[in-house]
């Protein structure tokens, strides 16, 4: 028995060490990620719950296992407005570095609470899963100890936070791929899983923009390859995470191409993953550009602070006046969201390729893994 426990424990420790090597993110770099994420939330993903107040209470139909099931209906208007404003304020605090650990956890709680009601129409959306995971993992990191207005104290959990986020992302991808594996890998050219997504989107939901029409010209063999590629892609991140930083970042670049293709062909927008993939490209790129020592660095930080305060104020004014949407304050849903997704994913791919090129020039050594960035 002891032998088995020892073997399992050592296996876990070794695996964790390898994952940490793939996902290394020193404190200084994670503080840049914190600012990026806070600004990104304010620009593209500032949740809005106030509209729920315009909906009849009888539409309240929460999932069987949801926090909102503890309530008898949607919350009152005042509470929804408070949730909206808290989301904006905590996103601003994350960006500015005002007690980031508390702000991240508070944002997470408000986000989960508000979304529990948003998803109480009988359907759970999955778009915000990785945002929750990121805030949970980095709440215990050192991302609020530097480049912050009110810095946090260092945490011993920091080296694990980016590793844990990598594990959660890999597991999320596994949940998307596992059921496809059982259904799509059938070695039968006459059935296709990708086409099921495509036809339903194209004909039933009107997803006919960008390159969608080109799918009609895809040969059956290509369609079958797409099915198997999707399964392999969604089941492989954990292996890449263990294999090393080059494999992990290569998978992230592939994932960005996957999201770009989804936007172009299926018109599916999934942009909450954008800052998360960027986070793993930041370390080699920031090391290369020596941004920390750049003469304009402090000015850029101050400009970011100023910019996020302005954006947050606009958000709050709009929310209080009964308006406001999640993305870029006024950007409507539809084709503009698709183009936004194209631009963002293209940018992430460029960053990813640059980080891979840098990796080839200067592979990350084990000493980098211990580097605390201070």
């Amino acid at each position, binding site marked *: 028995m*002891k*032998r088995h*426990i*020892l073997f399992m*424990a050592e296996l*876990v*420790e070794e695996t*964790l060490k390898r994952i940490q090597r793939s996902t290394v993110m020193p404190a200084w770099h994670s503080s840049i990620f914190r600012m990026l994420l806070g600004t990104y939330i304010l620009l593209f993903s500032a949740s809005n719950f106030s*509209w729920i107040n*315009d*909906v*009849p*209470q*009888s*539409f*309240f*139909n*929460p*999932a*069987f*296992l*949801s926090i909102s099931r503890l309530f*008898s*209906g949607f919350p009152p208007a005042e509470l929804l407005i408070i949730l909206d404003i808290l989301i904006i304020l905590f996103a601003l605090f994350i960006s500015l570095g005002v007690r980031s650990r508390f702000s991240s956890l508070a944002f997470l709680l408000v986000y*989960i609470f508000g*979304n*529990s009601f948003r998803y109480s*129409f*009988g*359907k*759970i959306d999955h778009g915000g*899963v990785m945002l*929750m*995971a990121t805030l949970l993992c980095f709440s215990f990191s050192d991302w609020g100890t530097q480049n912050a207005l009110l810095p946090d104290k260092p945490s011993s959990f920091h080296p*694990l936070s980016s590793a*844990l986020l990598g*594990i*959660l992302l890999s*597991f999320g991808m596994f*949940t*998307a791929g*596992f*059921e*496809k594996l059982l*259904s799509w890998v*059938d070695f039968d*050219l*006459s*059935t*296709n*899983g990708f*086409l*099921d*997504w495509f*036809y339903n989107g194209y*004909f039933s*939901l009107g997803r006919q923009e960008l390159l969608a029409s080109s799918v*009609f010209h895809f040969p*059956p063999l290509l369609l079958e390859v797409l*099915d198997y590629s999707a399964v392999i892609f969604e089941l492989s991140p954990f292996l890449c995470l263990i294999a090393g930083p080059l494999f992990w970042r290569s998978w992230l670049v592939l994932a960005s191409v996957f999201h770009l293709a989804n936007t172009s062909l299926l018109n599916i927008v999934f942009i909450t993953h954008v800052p998360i993939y960027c986070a793993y490209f930041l370390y080699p790129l920031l090391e290369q550009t020596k941004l920390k020592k750049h003469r304009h660095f402090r000015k850029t930080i101050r400009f970011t602070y100023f910019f996020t305060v302005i954006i947050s104020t606009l958000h709050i004014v709009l929310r209080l006046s009964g308006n406001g949407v999640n993305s870029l304050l006024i950007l409507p849903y539809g084709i503009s969201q698709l183009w936004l997704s194209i631009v963002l994913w293209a940018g992430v791919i460029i960053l990813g390729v640059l980080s891979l090129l840098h990796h080839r020039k200067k592979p990350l050594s084990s000493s980098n893994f211990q580097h605390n960035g201070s």
Partner: protein
Amino acid sequence: MNKEVRLRMLNKKSILLTLLLIIGLTVPYSLKLLSPQLEPYPAIIFPAGPGKVKGSQDTFDFIASNIYCFDLLTKEWERQDTLSFLSPIPRQYFQAIVKNEFGLNPKLEHTVKFRKGIFPSFTYKNSSALDLANIDHAKAWLRDRLQQHGCMDSSLIVRHTRMSVDLATRVVSEMNVIDEKIFKL
């Protein structure tokens, strides 16, 4: 180094965290695998969509659900744009709201079915649908929407239509109403 020493040197905190992580990830996903209705929120679960279609088919069939109301101008039952009719509710929730019969039916029970009948299915009711004041408010809300769309406000129809699309021309070649439900307001 002997086993006893190595066991004592193990990082117990890391092992405990690993166990918690495994439980925190696998239990919610197992529940979803057992029954999609048991998917918890929050959980680390991404959309799977494992369905598939015949690749060599000439037509693609799908079921479209739409709201119809009696237009006061044309004196016909006209299809309404779901997005504007249910605004500000996002379009993706429409099917679930229809399945819940707009919360107008206090007798409606939701069934949790397990895959391959591993466990017996069970039903539950929504507490909000049991409140008659909520139902009256929902009816008033729907009547208001019907008026805004220039329709008679006493009833609406949710019609489920099987649509066949000719894949060569990409136009609807056949439409068959397979089910419809009238909601008296």
